[in-house]
């Protein structure tokens, strides 16, 4: 099946292209908030991680958390983006119960990070997605409407937590690309340790901008923004729904209103939240409580020194150095923990076998048990030992699978299993010869058949010898000796 990246919405007369841009809100990995020392730990009791600054008490002032700035710069470097040595924090003014200050501190005209790019590996090749900007901003608190029929509860634990808003250019063209883009972004940030990318905990959410245009059209259509979508699956569903809705409007000769929409995950549809006319006037202006953020060259170069090898570079190295296929390398580098595991395993063992065992047996077990590789029941050290036992001929690949099954339960040492169960491969030619002689003796008629041309029977003899060896016979040696005997 020829896989292709092309995605169009087709109607009787026309074919439409979908244009997508994402504004990803990524929670900065940091112990404390963007402008206060409160903890950012997920899942605490409501309103237990709130300072007077976060709750906007009178006279409280924001003080920038240097670590969050560093994290943003790191991410900027990971996105191969321009680091702006001077950026400005602005106030975005609006009233809401979970916005204690009555404004969000964000960056408007002068973000900390400028243009960059992300490379996607699609089935039909690589695609570059432009990054427009990345800026730092505070998260709001959380309004909880479903505890009480008439009252709203407010939890300010999240109020003031640092977010990076990463704005892509309108370069995405399909739900598949959105999937690949989010995964790549998450992969880069997890390599850098700047965002854990945990979508269930809300560490990564996105506003999705969707427009459609007839195939071949150079101008963009009117876009709609779908707010705050918190899983890749929902993003894809929302895009497909929204693009079709817009196409239907065009087909009916109607126009599309630029508006903000919400995705209803239960009904699988988007609906209007507010029109352009009702858009908030946020009255942005530079926050007078904060001076412009100025970053020195030294600070940037210091951060550059801390940047680890990123997925693109790692992939290239895996291909060049280990002779992996692009496909294999992609699988191994996409998640930082997988790549770490892989590199630990191959420190002392064969690369090819390690690749096959990790992407084969190990992934199957992880999938089945719904575990992350960081929670793997088999440690990299023990997997490495297992591979070495195969490589040096102590056990066969087949026995190794049996041993692996046992290793899963409590990360057992494969050598111990081999010793305890006597699973060591029989590679002594003399011992094997004895077994072979026995099989030949017990099957004289079959030997005759074989010699008279029924060569298919060779497999039968191998099976019999294996049986005699209780599965431990070295298959290569058995083959060789058996052939010599039968043909001799």
């Amino acid at each position, binding site marked *: 099946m020829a896989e292709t990246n092309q995605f169009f919405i087709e109607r009787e007369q026309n074919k439409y292209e979908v244009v997508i841009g994402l504004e990803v809100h990524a929670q900065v990995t940091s112990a404390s908030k963007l402008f206060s020392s409160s903890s950012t730990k997920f899942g605490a009791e409501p309103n237990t991680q709130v300072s007077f600054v976060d709750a906007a008490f009178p006279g409280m002032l924001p003080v920038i958390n240097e670590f969050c700035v560093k994290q943003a710069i790191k991410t900027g470097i990971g996105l191969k983006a321009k680091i702006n040595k001077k950026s400005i924090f602005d106030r975005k003014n609006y009233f809401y119960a979970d916005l204690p200050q009555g404004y969000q501190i964000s960056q408007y005209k002068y973000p900390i990070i400028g243009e960059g790019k992300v490379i996607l590996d699609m089935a039909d090749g690589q695609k570059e997605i432009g990054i427009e900007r990345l800026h730092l901003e505070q998260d709001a608190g959380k309004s909880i409407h479903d505890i009480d029929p008439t009252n709203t509860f*407010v939890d300010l634990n999240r109020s003031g937590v640092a977010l990076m808003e990463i704005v892509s250019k309108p370069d995405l063209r399909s739900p598949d690309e959105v999937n690949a883009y989010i995964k790549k972004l998450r992969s880069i940030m997890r390599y850098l340790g700047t965002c854990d990318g945990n979508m269930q905990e809300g560490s990564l959410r996105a506003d999705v901008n969707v427009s459609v245009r007839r195939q071949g059209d150079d101008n963009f259509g009117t876009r709609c923004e779908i707010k705050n979508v918190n899983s890749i699956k929902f993003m894809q569903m929302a895009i497909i729904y929204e693009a079709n809705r817009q196409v239907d409007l065009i087909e009916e000769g109607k126009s599309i209103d630029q508006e903000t929409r919400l995705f209803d995950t239960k009904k699988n549809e988007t609906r209007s939240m507010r029109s352009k006319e009702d858009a908030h006037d946020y009255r942005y202006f530079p926050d007078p409580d904060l001076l412009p953020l100025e970053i020195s060259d030294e600070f940037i170069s210091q951060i550059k020194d801390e940047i680890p090898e990123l997925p693109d570079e790692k992939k290239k190295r895996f291909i060049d150095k280990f002779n992996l296929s692009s496909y294999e390398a992609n699988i191994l580098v996409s998640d930082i923990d997988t790549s770490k595991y892989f590199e630990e395993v191959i420190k002392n063992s064969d690369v090819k076998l390690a690749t096959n065992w990790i992407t084969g047996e190990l992934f199957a077990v992880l999938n089945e048990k719904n575990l992350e590789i960081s929670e793997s029941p088999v440690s990299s050290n023990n997997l490495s030992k297992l591979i070495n036992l195969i490589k040096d001929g102590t056990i066969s690949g087949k026995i190794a699978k049996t041993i692996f099954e046992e290793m899963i339960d409590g990360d057992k040492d494969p050598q111990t299993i081999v010793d305890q169960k006597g699973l060591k491969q029989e590679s002594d030619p003399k011992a094997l010869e004895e077994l072979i002689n026995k099989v030949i003796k017990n099957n004289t008629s079959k030997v005759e058949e074989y010699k008279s041309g029924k060569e298919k029977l060779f497999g039968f003899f191998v099976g019999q010898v294996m049986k005699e060896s209780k599965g431990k016979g070295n298959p290569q040696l058995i083959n060789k000796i058996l052939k010599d005997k039968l043909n001799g």
Partner: protein
Amino acid sequence: MSDITKLSLNELIQNIRNKKLSSTEITNSFIERSEKSKKLNTYVTDNFSSALEAAKIFDEKPNMDLKLPGIPIAVKDLFCTNGVRTTAGSNILNNFIPPYESTVTQSMWDEGAILLGKLNCDEFAMGSSNETSFFGNVQNPIGENLVPGGSSGGSSAALAANLTPVTIGTDTGGSIRQPASFTGTVGLKPTYGSCSRYGIVAFASSLDQAGPMSQNVKDAALLLEVISKFDNKDSTSIVFKRNKYSSELTNNIKGLKIGIPNEYRVEGMPKEIEDLWKKGIEIIKDCGAEIVDISLPTTKYALPTYYIVAPAEASSNLARYDGVKYGFRSEGENLIDMYEKTRSEGFGEEVKRRILIGTYVLSSGYYDAYYLKAQKVRQLIKKDFDNVYNNVDAILTPSTPSSAFKIGEKTDDPVSMYLNDIFTVPVNLAGLPGISIPAGIDNKGFPLGLQIIGKPFDEQTILNIAYSMEEKINFKNNITDWWM
């Protein structure tokens, strides 16, 4: 000692150190006088019983090495004080008790001072007469039914009436210097970034600055020394070499060059203000300093610039008073209704006016024409000062275009009220230090002040100039205790 409350801060400290007076005696005297002066309406919240306890504790184990040993001090009700109600003169905070202390007041308590109470002020420091306070207007002790200036009007009145030996105010467009001028007292606004804004209820963040108010220059120098400190809790706090303002104070200003800005001769300025200024110039010459005519051409745009920048910041700073978390709430049908009722009832007219102006000038479509342009003009005003400071060490101007006016006289005319700040506002826009000292009286016998504006971070020079002028002027406030 019969007249403890008439003593200056430095005299009180001397008496405490000499053990001629105890903190308890001093504290008691100020409390007694304050109790008898309720008619002035200077206190919003008193802290008298706690102050007496603190004085007793101090006397039991006096630490004379402190800079303000056992000295009771009342402060403007814009400084958050841990456990003591802080209202900012507003209904919207009338039940607010901060669980934290402002850095500036903490510095005072750390040096042995004792909180006497919280002093009335214009609501959120927005006003020039203390008439916008939710807690009622304040009487100026120099004469019945006169305003004490504003916004630090409770502070200036309490100081002039000897209800507190010194006090601290905040100054966004003149709120320390103008009331000082109206009450015959000394008021200093430090360079922006000298005193921490942490824990001060914000009005206009890029302009607000706390500062000392006192009977004389020496007291101001000492109090400044206590409160001017770098604070990492305020991102706009600045690290610079701070002088030992009181011990480095000198009346030798020989050879200094003092600029007289042409543009401060505003149209319609009363002759007595002009005469006062001339008198000041003569005194400066007498002190051996040189007078230099200078030009600050952008001055005429200062007031309109200020009335864009300050309301813009205020409209955003005051958004947090929404009835959700603390302070006054008026229940409503839903969130929006609650907001509207809370803010309609919680804020007074002047505050609402400024929120509206501020919201307007920041609105999309108007931002460039108003706020952005005002910020550019502000840069030009700053540049004006930078230019003249190549040639002069300080600048002498009147503090205000008039003496204290009658209560109610200007309440219906906001623009005429705003004109009060015409000489003080440029100093805030440029972030400079300025001090007002009493320099004479007008034909009604009301005090008038002169303002000395300094280079950034050069508080010492303006204190020295003020100190040497003070000696020659020898101003005595004529206060009759008419309210008792």
